[in-house]
C-alpha cells in the first residue's frame, strides 16, 4: 500500500510537530510515506470566502500530485472535507482515497491498540467538518447511536482520561476567514468552548483539526496559558518516539 501524506499550509508553517507526529504514526504502522511538494494548500480558504474558482488550482494540483497513492492521509478534517467534496464534484477517483488521520487509523488501518502513554485529562474538541462533514462521529443533533472515532483512538492511550463536556460538539468559532471577518462572534464562541473544557478539568484540549486549536490556543495563550492545545496525532504518538523503529507495536485488526 502506498501512502501520500498531505500536510496543509498552516500545519507546515506553524505546527511542524503535528506533521512529524502524523508521519511517525503512519511509519509506525509500517507504511512507506511520501510527502509531495505541491500543493501547499487544499484551497479551502478561497472557496469558503466565496472564491471557489480560485481554489480550483489547488484541487487540480492535489488530484494530479496525489493520484499515484493508494491512500492519502491528512491530519486536518477540514482540509480533507474540502478536498473530498471538491474532488467528488469533479468525479475524481482520488476523492475516495483521501482520509483524515483518525478515519485512516480507525477504518483503513483498523488499529486496535496503541503503545501511547499520556497521563492527562483531555478535552476532545469535535471539529465540525470532521464530525458533521466527514462523519468521524455522531453529532448531538442526530438521533443516531453515539460513536466517535477520535474518542475511540484516545481511549487506546494509556493513562488518558477524556473529560465530559456540557456541549459535546458546539463549534469553536474558527470558521476560516470567519475568525477574522466576524472576530467578535468568533472570539465569543471560542471563549465559551474553553470555559466548558476548563469547567470539566481538562489539562489539554485536543482535536483532529489543528485550525480549531490554533483559534482556541490563541485565546488560551492570553487567558489561561496553563491549558494546552495538542493535535490528536501528538497524543496518539506520545512517548512512541522510542518505539518508532521497533517491531509492530501497533496491531492491525
Amino acid at each position, binding site marked *: 500500500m502506498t501512502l501520500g501524506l498531505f500536510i496543509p499550509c498552516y500545519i507546515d508553517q506553524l505546527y511542524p510537530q503535528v506533521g512529524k507526529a502524523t508521519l511517525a504514526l503512519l511509519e509506525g504502522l509500517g507504511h512507506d510515506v511520501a510527502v509531495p511538494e505541491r500543493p501547499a494548500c487544499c484551497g479551502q480558504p478561497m472557496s469558503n470566502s466565496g472564491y471557489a474558482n480560485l481554489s480550483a488550482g489547488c484541487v487540480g494540483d492535489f488530484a494530479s500530485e496525489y493520484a499515484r497513492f493508494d491512500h492519502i492521509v491528512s491530519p486536518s478534517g477540514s482540509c480533507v472535507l474540502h478536498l473530498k467534496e471538491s474532488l467528488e464534484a469533479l468525479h475524481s477517483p482520488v476523492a475516495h482515497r483521501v482520509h483524515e488521520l483518525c478515519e485512516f487509523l480507525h477504518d483503513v488501518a483498523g488499529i486496535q491498540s496503541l503503545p501511547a502513554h499520556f497521563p492527562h485529562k483531555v478535552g476532545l474538541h469535535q471539529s465540525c467538518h470532521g464530525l458533521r462533514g466527514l462523519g468521524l462521529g455522531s453529532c448531538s443533533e442526530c438521533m443516531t447511536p453515539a460513536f466517535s472515532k477520535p474518542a475511540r483512538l484516545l481511549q487506546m492511550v494509556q493513562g488518558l482520561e477524556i473529560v465530559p463536556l456540557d456541549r459535546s460538539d458546539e463549534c469553536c468559532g474558527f470558521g476560516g476567514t470567519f475568525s*477574522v471577518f466576524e472576530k*467578535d462572534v468568533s472570539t465569543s464562541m471560542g471563549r465559551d468552548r474553553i470555559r466548558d473544557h476548563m469547567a470539566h478539568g481538562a489539562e489539554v484540549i485536543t482535536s483532529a483539526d489543528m485550525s480549531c486549536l490554533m483559534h482556541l*490556543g490563541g485565546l488560551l495563550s492570553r487567558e489561561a496559558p496553563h491549558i494546552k492545545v495538542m493535535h490528536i496525532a501528538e497524543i496518539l504518538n506520545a512517548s512512541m518516539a522510542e518505539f518508532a523503529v521497533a517491531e509492530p507495536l501497533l496491531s492491525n485488526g
Partner: protein
Amino acid sequence: MDQPLQHSSAAHDFLRDPQRAAWHDQTLWMVRAKRDRMASRVPEWEQLREAASQIKEHTLSRLADYLEQFASKAEANGIHVHWAADGEEHNRIVHSILKRHGVRKMVKSKSMLTEECHLNPYLEQKGIEVIDTDLGERIVQLQQKPPSHIVMPAIHLKRAEVGEVFHEHLGTPAGLDDAQQLTEAARQHLRNHFLTADAALTGVNFAVAETGGFVVCTNEGNADMGAHLAPVHIACMGLEKIIPEQKHLGVFLRLLARSATGQPSTVFSSHFLKPRPGQEMHVVIVDNGRSRQLARPDYRKSLACIRCAACFNTCPVYRRSGGYSYSFFIAGPIGSILAPNVDKAAHSSLPFASTLCGSCTAVCPVKIDIHSQLLKWRQEITAAGHAPWWKKAAMLATAFAVRRPALFRLGGWFMRHASPVFNVFKLDPWTRTRDLPPAPAQTFRQWHNQRSNRDS
C-alpha cells in the same frame, strides 16, 4: 441610500454586553437541549425527518398541481382563494377584503408572511388597526420592533423589560416582573381586542391539497380566539406551505413542535376546513419570489422549510449575535439562505455570518442542506461583486502563492517572523483577541526534506 446592515458590525454591538449575550446564548441553548430530549424519545426520529424531506421534495417537484388541487378543493368547501404574485398584491387583496366588510380593527396571529409583505404598516396607513395577538409578537409590536426570532419573537427581552413595555402601553404598575401577573395583563388586554375585532388574520402552517383545508399551530390559542370570534377569517400562506395529503400531517406535526420548542405538540393544532355559517373565509396564496427560488436547483430545497427555527436555536452565531443582527426579516441560518434570493446586495453579509459548522443542516427536520447553500450563496455574492476589493486581492495572492513552493516558502518565512510583532501590537482582527502561535525554527517540509536527504 443607507448602507446595508452588516452582520459583523451588528454582532459587535450585540456582544458589547457580554453578560446579556451569554444569557441569550444560554436561553436558546436550553430550547435546543429540550428539542434534543424530545427528539430522542421518538425512536423513529431520523425516519420521520427523511419522510418529511421526501414529502417536501415531491411536493416541490409538482407544486403547481398541488396548489391547483388545494385551491379547487378549498373553493368547493366555500373558502375564497386569492393568488398574490408579490407582497404588494397580497396587501391589496387583504385590504380589499377588509374594506368590503368595513373593518376597522383586525386581530392577527403569528404570520411571518405578513412581516415579509409589511402588511401592518400598509393597513395602518389605510386606517385599519392591527393587533398582533401572539404574546411575543404583541410585545415587540408595542415596541414598534420586528420579531427577533420566528417562533419566539421576544426571546431577546428579559421579563423586567416586558414589564416596562406593559407599564408604558398597558398601564401595569411600574417595575412589574412577575410572569403570572404580566401574562394576566396581556390576557385581559388581548381579550378585549378579540371581542371587538371585525376580522381575524392567521398564518398557515400546512395547507392540505387533498382536502382544501389548512392547519394553524399556536401555543396560545390566539389564532382560534381570533378566527372563531370574527365574522371574517383571512389566512395567508406562502405557496410552499402545501402538503399533498391529510395523512402527511402526521409526519410534520410530530416534527414541528419538537424541533421548535421541544414540546411533543403545539398546544393548538387547529384544522380549518370551511367557514362556519355566517362567516367568510379567505386564503391568500403568495409567491413573492418563491417561484424564482424554486427555479434555482441549488436553493430549491430552502422552500421545504416549516419555520420551526431549530436552526436558529442551534446556531452558535445566531445565539451570540441575536435576531436584530440579521438584515432579513427571517434571521438565523434559514433566513441567510432565503435573503439573497430577495436581494443579494442588501443581504450580502448574511451567508458569511456562519462558520459552516453544519449544525443547522443536522438539526433541520426537513433536511435542508442549509450550510451547503450558505457556501453556494457566498460564491454568487462575490461573483456579483458584493465583496470588498481587498478581500479578493488577498484571496488572489493566497491562491497564487500556495501553488508555487518557492513563493510559499518565502511568504511563510515572512509570516512566521512577523507573528511576534503582530502579537505585540494586537492591531489586526486575529491578534486583537488571540495570539498567533510561536513560530517554529523549521517548517515541516524543511524538516522532512532534510531527513530525506540524510536518509538517501
